[in-house]
């Protein structure tokens, strides 16, 4: 039986200046799930994350991690459970050297020197920064800082890993290796992963379930369910993945498949399967409704258009 990793009930939060950031949030995340939280700028993703490890204290005991109220946890227990990698790496690398920074969490957990050393080495190796131990943070490139900030959280080996915009500003190679790394942690160690991201093309590679946040939780479902819901996407200023849109277009030309792919990898699989099951070829054509259908599809994705009907 799986355990509830995160449970939030009726969470409301306004910043001291009166900005309402979160309203009536209810979420339940099982251990080992891969979750993405999407939402436009200012939707409250970062604010929600600050609640997940008790940085912002909720007074109603409504953030529960592995069955225990986060507000009641000691700092050591809290950081063993939830590790958060924030958006801006400069905010997170606050120690004089990379080594000190990555060692910061483990030392606060009270681990002995050898274990701290081991964890720092392994975290740095995981993000590909071996040999950067003595470097100072302000001389690293943005992507390197980003990976160092991740290492600083990985070294605490948290059971829930929360990442705010992990792929933003990374080059393609680093983006792919980051996605792979998160998925490996999930698969091999059973780490529950929660990411906030704007890159819808990468979302389906990192999540089995998506929450759509816009102050309130407006939707929750599998990536396909979410991206099929054009009105939901438009109302919340979101996009569907390019591949998904392309296959929507292809369907206007008479291409039929069971489920629309969300990424290139999915697409290869879907195409292979469909073509093989179709006598080793597919047939695309233009029929009388094609132009109308195309217009309709494109219209649905257009953020500036009025909702259809």
């Amino acid at each position, binding site marked *: 039986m799986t355990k509830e990793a995160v449970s939030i009930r009726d969470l409301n939060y306004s910043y001291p200046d009166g900005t309402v950031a979160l309203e009536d949030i209810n979420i339940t995340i099982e251990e080992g799930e891969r979750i993405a939280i999407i939402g436009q700028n200012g939707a409250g993703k970062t604010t929600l994350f*600050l609640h997940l*490890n*008790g*940085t912002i204290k909720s007074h109603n005991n409504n953030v529960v991690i592995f069955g225990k109220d986060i507000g009641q946890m000691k*700092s*050591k227990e*809290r*950081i063993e459970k*939830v*590790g*958060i990698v*924030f958006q*801006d790496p*400069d*905010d*997170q*690398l*606050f*120690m*004089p*050297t990379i*080594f*000190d920074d990555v*060692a*910061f*969490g483990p*030392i*606060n*957990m009270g681990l002995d*020197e050898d274990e*701290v*050393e081991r964890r720092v080495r392994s975290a740095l190796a995981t993000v590909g920064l071996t040999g950067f131990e003595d470097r*100072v*943070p*302000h001389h690293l490139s943005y992507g390197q800082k980003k990976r160092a900030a991740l290492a*600083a*959280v990985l070294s*605490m080996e948290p059971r829930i890993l929360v990442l705010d915009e992990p792929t933003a500003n990374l080059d393609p190679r680093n983006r792919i290796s980051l996605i792979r790394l998160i998925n490996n942690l999930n698969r091999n160690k059973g780490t529950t992963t929660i990411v906030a991201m704007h890159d819808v093309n990468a979302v389906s590679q990192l999540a089995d379930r998506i929450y759509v946040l816009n102050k309130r939780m407006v939707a929750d479902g599998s990536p396909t369910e979410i991206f099929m819901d054009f009105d939901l996407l438009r109302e919340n200023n979101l996009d569907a993945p390019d591949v998904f849109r392309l296959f929507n277009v292809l369907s206007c030309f008479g291409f039929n498949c069971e489920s629309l792919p969300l990424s290139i990898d999915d697409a290869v699989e879907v195409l292979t399967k469909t073509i093989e099951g179709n006598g080793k070829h597919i047939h695309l054509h233009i029929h009388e409704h094609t132009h109308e259908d195309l217009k309709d599809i494109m219209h649905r994705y257009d953020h500036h258009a009025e909702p259809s009907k």
Partner: protein
Amino acid sequence: MEYPEIDRYASLDSPVHRFDPRTKIATFTFLVFSFVFIQEITIALFALFFSILLLLVSKLPIGFVFKRVQVVLIFVLPLLIIMPLTVEGTELFSVFGISATHEGLRYASLIVIRAMAAVILILTMLGSMRFDTTIKALYMLKVPSSLVQMLMFTYRYIFVIIDEFLSMSRAMSAKGFNPGMNMYSLSIIGNMVGMLIVKSYERGERVYQAMISRGYTGNPKTRTAFAMRRTDYVLSAILVGFAILVHININTVMM
């Protein structure tokens, strides 16, 4: 704008660089205190000479150190003019009825020389090890933790703030702003400084959140591994010896 990289030459190799960081800080501080209490110009000159000698031994580029000494000189050099005019004593010369005194000039020179000696010492000390090493050494010397943390974060974020300032000023010049000496320019620059303060404040908040997220409870602990060697004992004996010597000398001179 230049980054205040005091430890740019920390990777050079010299006896001063190899000196154990804790002992270096302790003995150099002792020397600085000893120097600022010197009462004789000749001995002060001797101390200044000793500081320069240490600087030469450390192989730090003279220009690098001198550029920073200049900043201090801007503050102390005016004393050479003010003090002779204000301190009472035997008259040296007088202009327009205002007289300059011998004592005034003597005190002012003493202050300038002692200041230079002390500043050169401190720069040699800071310049010859990485700043993170300095911080760890201070931490091990049981300097109050809040002080060490203040130093540490100042040093860490001064670079970020400079970057923020630079990107702001680049953004402004990209929008056609040319700073000049008029009301408009000044008010824009005032805004910019205000923004910088707000940004720094907000960053401070986010950094604190990140620290809490990693179990910060008030005392950052770091791992330190320093070991004293024989040369460290010899070098500290020489430095401490000199620090005491300059004062013994005064007594014998006065007797």
